[in-house]
């Protein structure tokens, strides 16, 4: 069987990138983002990208580097408040933007991967989000119709994988990654380690191998923290 395991980000993306394509990128803020794949896409220089991702990184990190490279034509996101360049490009009319409520975005991606072309949600009824969309009453309550989302490519960050492509995520770095892994025509995954097949808990595999086309161990994981927040250690006297 053809192996799903590739040696690095560049080889894992070979033949998959083209101008004008749609890419889904996992992560919430800078947590659980496919750092290595983003860097490789920056390197490859493809342009006019539509990027579906909850956020757009920060200036100089995460998807922010694709923004700085002028590679992104349109973002489909729920929140981009941490990115000054984003605001600047958007207000200058150089960037298209489609805001989705975060839960609607997550569900649209799940639907796209699950063969569901549309669903109804109460979220956004009576707001800008519902404009131009069907609003329908079920059992006395109004709901807006939202469409499933898919992409040409999904770029995913997981914690561990096996050679069959089974993935496990760690803590809140899971976020959008599992749904996006199901909604890409091709799904490429970077992981912190590839473990022997059979060593992952079979009851705890978040993404079964069927969804993973290519995977590799990322060379660098900076895992930058956006809002380092701590509390003081209790003093010795408290012990």
């Amino acid at each position, binding site marked *: 069987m053809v192996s799903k395991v590739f040696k690095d980000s560049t080889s894992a993306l070979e033949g998959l990138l083209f101008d004008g394509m749609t890419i889904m990128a996992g992560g919430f803020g800078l947590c659980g983002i496919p750092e290595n794949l983003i860097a490789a896409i920056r390197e490859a220089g493809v342009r006019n990208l539509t990027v579906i991702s909850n956020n757009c990184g920060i200036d100089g990190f995460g998807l922010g580097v694709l923004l700085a490279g002028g590679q992104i034509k349109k973002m489909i996101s729920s929140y981009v*408040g941490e990115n000054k360049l984003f605001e600047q490009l958007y207000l200058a009319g150089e960037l298209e933007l489609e805001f989705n409520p975060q839960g609607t975005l997550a569900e649209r991606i799940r639907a796209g991967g699950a063969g569901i072309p549309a669903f109804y949600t109460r979220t956004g009824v009576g707001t800008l989000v519902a404009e131009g969309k069907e609003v329908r009453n079920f059992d006395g309550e109004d709901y807006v119709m939202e469409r499933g989302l898919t992409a040409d490519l999904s770029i995913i960050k997981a914690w561990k994988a096996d050679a069959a492509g089974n993935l496990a995520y760690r803590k*809140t770095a899971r976020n959008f990654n599992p749904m996006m892994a199901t909604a890409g025509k091709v799904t490429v995954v970077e992981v912190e380690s590839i473990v022997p097949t059979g060593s992952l808990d079979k009851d705890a595999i978040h993404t079964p191998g069927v969804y993973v086309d290519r995977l590799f161990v990322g060379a660098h994981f900076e895992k930058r923290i956006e809002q380092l927040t701590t509390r003081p250690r209790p003093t010795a006297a408290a012990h």
Partner: protein
Amino acid sequence: MAWTRDQIAARAARELQDGFYVNLGIGIPTLVANHIPPGVTVTLQSENGMLGMGPFPYEGEADPDLINAGKQTITELDSSSYFSSADSFAMIRGGHINLSILGGMQVSASGDLANWTVPGKMVKGMGGAMDLVAGVRRIVVVMEHVEKSGAPKLLPACTLPLTGKGVVDLLITDLGVFDIDRKGGGVTLRELAAGVTLDEVKAKTGASFKVALQGAEAA
């Protein structure tokens, strides 16, 4: 005299009931966690995929894979669980969270909330706010009663783009506490902050409201 941000948070914390599952927004709502009444145990949900949020980590122990919806580093508890964003919002949209406490920019007399954008000025996005107000069973909004300019924020109708229509159950400001009838419409002043007069509230409020004070308690 008006309540401080911390006093607003303390008053909001009195809305928490034992056993509640709660989602706290960013800003004043985050402070609510510091004021949970004794004997009340609540479980905090973070919409990026966690139930059972713990306190901030000790210095040197932050884990980049463990953040809250405000992107702050946090910790886990024995009872914590992690899940995907789709599962997290299924939990929110499906009405499984008892209470959410959120910040606000404007609230209307019929319970509309605006808290996500100022056209032409602010390009941030609604994040999970629209899902929270649409899905969580009870919505408490905490905010300053007026803008820096002095303009009222409790209005007959919001002028800013809405986060949700008819979604707010209770409004807590630095001046007092207001019940909002999100089905029928209509605001009732329930509590005045210590040292705040009814006249001051009337002067600083755009919406008309009934008065049924339960006693002006200091938080």
